[in-house]
């Protein structure tokens, strides 16, 4: 039998006052058994501090069971399957009209079910992991995953989606389409009226008529429970395409299909950290108030997968789907070369012009689209996808390692290491086009400062709407608005969701914006202790500038901040100025109503780092 201390270290320790170990049961099978914990108080205290040192005192339990790195393939969730609207009981007549919609707008119909299911994440032989996801288990040629199906739509194609909640008693869910211009009732903000109760469904209409080709995603956004629910797997990709994108002939476009059995050359990759217990079960810490950090690193739901690739160009859609972890990515071959990233897009879609960088930082919920070129690499070459950002505390990343080329093969709890690996395994013709620094599209929306209206009556033109992210005297999160019409005393105010059901929805509204106008918002972090990835619903923004909150000194924009953005990495002592226009598309409603802005460190969000703003006609 293993030494008790070794078991503890390996994470096979199973709960307070008891120790989990393997034993032969009366039936003859092997199973887990609990022993009385006979360690001294001093030993327990030591172990406690050891754990808390490992995870910065904020996440996880003991170490997750180890897993051989690069021993599994990459799961790629299949595209969602269209359904006939007549198979959706109760669908309003106006929508029950088939593929051309009631108004001639092409409409696609889908249905997914949120449920619990076992998914084999660790190798066969280890128990399957229970996950919560959209229509899980998702079975792919590369393995099983908790990610939901990938929705794919063209700009101008309406998506009608029914989401059933079958998660279980007393479990609610809200589903947010992250990145899109969507009517407020279908946006999936953390508001009481948006909750889908267990055993019920909600129908969503996504017009997809006011965005450009982009990597969006959908995920749970339930009130106070988002951290847990997304950790359990309630998320998936939502990809939008359009004609200007297709004309670019980027890797993986419809005329550049992958050979049978190989992964596509346009590859969505979501990076997440998770913690598992000795039984391979997901262990969320609901008390990780600073932000949850895991100690296992997954791509598309697989732990440190290998991505079988060709020596040619790839388009990668990179999403940081972690609760609180920041990453700095770099591609390094086993022959000592760095493969640069050509950034072609951010949260809201493609850039005007591609920019090249050797590495980039990505905060929770941010998307970065890149083209990487493996042309010329010999088959057998390995390309390591490295993370060089240390983080052991949910509050903020700790900084870069000195040398990103020589990180550990398997990341430790600080996250530094090789997250996944491309194995160059075959050669194939590459008919796609891409030149570093090339022009991509000239129709990305631009919002002009000269058109920005004063957001608050009585202020001068060009005034900004200011929001300060800070803590109150009881340690609670506050988002302070400087809008004197809604907040006369300019007081710091915590999130107020309004009275609960069955009362009519009536949250405190901290800003009112008119459809069709342009505004400049300023997000201020005056603290040196925390970083907040702030997400604003409904609109895509352009970042105007990024300055030091104290000195006002310009910090410049990062290569990931040059296009349309909906997540703003508000690092310690940083102020960001944003501009957007409250537009709506030609086929949809005006998208009036209530939306939210919140921290996408989802534990901060669950602890009310959020405000409600309203769009009025």
């Amino acid at each position, binding site marked *: 039998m*293993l*030494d008790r201390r070794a078991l503890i270290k390996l994470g*096979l320790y199973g*709960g*307070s006052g*008891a120790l989990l170990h*393997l*034993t032969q*049961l*009366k039936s003859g099978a092997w*199973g*887990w*058994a*609990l022993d009385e914990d006979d360690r001294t108080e001093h030993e327990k205290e030591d172990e406690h501090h050891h754990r808390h040192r490992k995870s910065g*005192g904020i996440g996880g*339990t003991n170490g997750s*069971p*180890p897993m051989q790195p690069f021993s599994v393939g990459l799961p790629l969730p299949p595209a969602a399957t269209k359904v006939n609207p007549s198979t959706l009981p*109760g*669908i309003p007549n*106006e929508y029950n009209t088939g593929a051309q919609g009631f108004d001639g707008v092409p409409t696609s119909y889908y249905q997914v079910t949120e449920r*619990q299911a076992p998914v084999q994440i660790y190798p*066969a*032989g*280890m*128990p399957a992991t*229970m996950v919560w996801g959209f229509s899980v288990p998702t079975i792919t040629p590369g393995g099983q995953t908790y990610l939901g199906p990938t929705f794919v739509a063209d700009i101008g194609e309406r998506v009608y989606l029914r989401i059933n909640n079958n998660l*279980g008693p*007393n479990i609610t869910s809200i589903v947010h389409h992250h990145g899109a211009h969507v009517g407020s*009732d*279908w946006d999936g903000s953390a508001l009481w*009226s948006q909750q889908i*109760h*267990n*055993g*019920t469904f*909600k*129908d969503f*209409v996504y017009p997809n008529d006011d965005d450009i080709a982009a990597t969006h995603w959908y995920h749970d956004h339930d009130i*106070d*429970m988002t951290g847990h629910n997304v950790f359990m797997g309630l998320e998936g990709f939502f990809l939008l395409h359009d004609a200007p994108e297709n004309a670019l002939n980027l890797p993986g476009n419809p005329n550049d299909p992958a050979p049978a059995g190989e992964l596509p050359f346009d590859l969505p990759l979501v990076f997440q950290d998770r913690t598992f217990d*000795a*039984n391979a*079960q997901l262990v969320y*810490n*609901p*008390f990780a*108030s600073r932000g949850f950090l895991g100690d296992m690193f997954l791509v598309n739901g697989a732990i440190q997968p290998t991505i079988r690739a060709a020596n040619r160009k790839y388009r990668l859609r990179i999403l940081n789907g972690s609760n609180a972890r920041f990453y700095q990515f770099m591609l390094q071959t086993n022959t000592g070369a760095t493969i640069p990233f050509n950034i072609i897009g951010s949260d809201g879609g493609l850039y005007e012009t591609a920019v090249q960088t050797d590495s980039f930082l990505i905060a929770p919920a941010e998307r970065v689209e890149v083209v990487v070129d493996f042309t010329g690499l010999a088959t057998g070459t390995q390309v390591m996808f490295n993370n060089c950002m240390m983080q052991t505390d949910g509050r903020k990343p700790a900084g870069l390692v000195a040398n990103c080329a020589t990180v550990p093969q398997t990341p430790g709890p600080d996250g530094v290491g090789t997250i996944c690996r491309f194995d160059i395994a075959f050669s194939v013709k590459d008919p796609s086009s891409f030149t570093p620094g090339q022009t991509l599209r000239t129709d990305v929306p631009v919002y002009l400062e000269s058109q920005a209206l004063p957001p608050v009556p009585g202020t001068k033109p060009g005034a900004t709407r200011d929001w300060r992210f800070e803590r109150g*005297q*009881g*340690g*609670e999160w506050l988002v302070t608005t400087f809008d004197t019409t809604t907040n006369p005393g300019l007081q710091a105010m*915590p999130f*107020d969701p309004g*009275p*609960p059901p069955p009362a009519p929805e009536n949250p405190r509204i901290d800003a009112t914006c008119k459809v069709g106008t342009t505004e400049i918002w300023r997000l201020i972090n005056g603290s040196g202790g925390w970083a907040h990835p702030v997400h604003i619903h409904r609109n895509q923004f352009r970042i105007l500038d990024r300055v030091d909150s104290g000195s006002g000194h310009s910090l410049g924009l990062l290569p990931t901040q040059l296009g349309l953005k909906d997540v703003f990495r508000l690092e310690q002592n940083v102020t960001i100025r944003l501009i957007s226009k409250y537009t709506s598309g030609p086929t949809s*409603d005006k998208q009036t109503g209530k939306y939210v802005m919140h921290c996408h460190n989802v534990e901060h969000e*669950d*602890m*009310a780092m959020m405000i409600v703003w309203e769009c009025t006609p």
Partner: protein
Amino acid sequence: MSNLAKIAFTLVLATAGVQFAVCGDGSEKLPNPRTDFLAYTAHALREHFPNVVLTNQDNKKLRFYDDLLKGKIVVIQFMFSNCERLCPMVTPNLVKVQKELEKQWPKKVHIVSITVDPDHDTPQVLKAYAEKFHVQPGWQFLTGRRADIDHIRRELGLYYPEDTQFEHMNMITIGREPTGQWITMRALNRPDVIAYTVRRLIPGGTGPDHHSALSRHSATN
């Protein structure tokens, strides 16, 4: 990987199809995550609840996990009787929450207030405090060893010694222990929202569920 790690890894692999329900001595059952994931989670979360002895306002010794949490729906608050900034508002706020919950869901919810100033807040002081605010039965005010109380605060994510700018974090922890569902929120949240949040964890607590968002929306909106 160290040799020990390799051995352990092999052992883990050797236990294909681990049996969850039975344990060596038969005294402790590990719930099966496939059939009751919430109960399994609740079991895993026990390590966050040190089973330390606390003393309530009636001088009764109670264990934090066994007597105050196990099997219960709880609201946990940290306070101290001399607190002059926010606590004087928090306790009346929770009195309103208790009143609202007791009306509809009598004796379902337990409120656990733990002092962060155990040197001053003796059971007698806490009893006077409870009487001053006219709290109803089902609400314990507790004191204990400072190290034990800090341990509980740390496990609930509400105590970071380096955060010196607050006397204590003014948050409450709402949970249903047997299902491992826990929510942390502002102690000065609206009392109706706090009560509704507790009801989210009570079976049937938020009323009958119904399908939503069908007739409300028309395409022209």
